[in-house]
């Protein structure tokens, strides 16, 4: 009897959450539609949700971009390739550097002030310099995306290493470890949770910077698609681009989270 009552109570909570969530979302879409439809203030300048949906799922899209248009996927692909390369480079360079900085005090004292000096410059302020330094647009955009993710990765990895509980290191030494054993068996796994926090933040800022880069200097990609549609006043396509960006951004973060969870099954949650 007790169990049944409790189960019912819990079921109610989950169900009502779902209903409320759906209601909230419906209200959002409805408000959007109403504001556009009745041309409240300047809302007439925006597309309404249903025309966006229609365009997105149309076999013959008015402005050439929909789920059935190959160019749509070309843009997604262009952005994804850039983010992937930049993210992998940031991880490959940032994690070892972060471990070095956390693990070796001398290296930290040499390099950390320099990093702290450069870090406050927002990644997007690098745009002009990136174009100057790197000959191709592709390289410049990857550089921009990379620099954002790189700092997040380095700093979080370093933080991870320095926050490892001293007693793990001590335990490892008094079980007979050499320095190298400690690095592989304690430092790397011990800082993994922080490394993945860094990678998640890195993935977020990578997309953030890429969009700006593509808008400023791109020739393809989702950021370029959005700006180009703006130039040609194709507002539904702008919204399609935005939604797509949200989706791929969400999926890539989920991928990082999933990988992290697979690697850290030992965490209790």
């Amino acid at each position, binding site marked *: 009897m*007790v*169990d049944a009552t409790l*189960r019912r*109570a*819990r079921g109610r909570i989950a169900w009502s959450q779902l209903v409320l969530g759906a209601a909230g979302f419906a209200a959002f879409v409805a408000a959007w539609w109403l504001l556009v439809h009745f041309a409240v203030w300047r809302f007439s300048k925006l597309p309404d949700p249903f025309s966006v949906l229609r365009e997105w799922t149309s076999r013959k899209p008015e402005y050439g971009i929909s789920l059935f248009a190959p160019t749509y996927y070309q843009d997604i692909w262009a952005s994804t390739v850039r983010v992937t390369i930049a993210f992998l480079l940031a991880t490959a360079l940032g994690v070892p550097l972060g471990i070095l900085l956390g693990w070796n005090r001398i290296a930290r004292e040499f390099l950390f002030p320099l990093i702290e000096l450069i870090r406050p410059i927002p990644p997007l302020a690098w745009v002009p310099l990136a174009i100057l330094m790197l000959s191709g647009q592709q390289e410049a955009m990857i550089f921009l995306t990379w620099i954002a993710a790189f700092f997040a990765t380095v700093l979080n990895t370093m933080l991870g290493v320095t926050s490892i509980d001293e007693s793990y290191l001590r335990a490892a030494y008094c079980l007979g470890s050499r320095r190298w054993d400690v690095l592989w068996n304690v430092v790397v796994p011990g800082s993994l949770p922080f490394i993945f926090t860094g990678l998640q933040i890195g993935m977020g800022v990578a997309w953030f910077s890429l969009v700006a880069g593509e808008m400023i200097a791109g020739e393809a990609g989702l950021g370029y698609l959005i700006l180009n549609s703006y130039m040609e006043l194709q507002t539904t396509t702008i919204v399609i681009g935005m939604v797509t960006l949200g989706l791929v951004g969400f999926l890539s973060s989920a991928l990082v989270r999933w990988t992290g969870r697979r690697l850290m099954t030992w965490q209790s949650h």
Partner: protein
Amino acid sequence: MVETLLSARAGRLEVRDVAKAFETAAGATLVVDRCSFTLEPNMLTVMVGPSGCGKTTLINLIAGYERPTSGEIVLDGRAVSAAGADRLVVFQETALFPWMTVLDNVAFGPLSRGNGTRSGVLLRARSLLDEVGLTGFADRYPNQLSGGMQRRAELARAILNEPAVMLMDEPFRGLDAMTRELMQEHYLRLFEQRLGTNLFVTSELGEALFLGDRLLVMTRKPTQVKRVIEIDLPRPREFHMLTSERFREIYEEALAALYDEGAKSLSQSG
């Protein structure tokens, strides 16, 4: 003399046949089952039991933070239905609000209820802080105090609120054994001066016997009262009684009952 002073004060709390079940991923688990006992006014009842046996759940039920699945809890003839200022919990670790000074913490209860003028409440709070030896720390934040000092501030906050029932949920847990002994003495002095209805939950048998008038030994989960032992050591209690022959006898008796449960509960959770 003490009797006449305090006989008017109520605070008789009865736990009648209470059960409590929780829903977990694996299904419902029964944490408290058919549990009955009475907390008498002006008596310090101590409760010991294996860890995780459901003592904290009992405290939450009495405090009114949670409702029993069956049975009832009655305070001075009225059934307890929600949390209220007549029953006060002193939590494990501490629940001093970190963002308020010690003085604001101590005065929080009466000020929240609009009980007396602000200056009057602050005056009483200050004198209580003097009494627990925290003169000069009134304007500090809790994290600027040591663990032992935080516990004393928390005792002062509880006492100023004048609850009918004080519920101490392993309040000295996390303190080292030595600081803990000093805190026990502090708490004893405060109780012996004021009395009232006190329930003190602990897993430390020595602490329980040093403080209490009556010991409830609880079974493992689902918990109920396994043994009631009257602790007939004289008051005021002194540190030296811990090595007296009478203490030893009671200790032996309680230890047997408790260890039995503890060993069972450990092998159970394995």
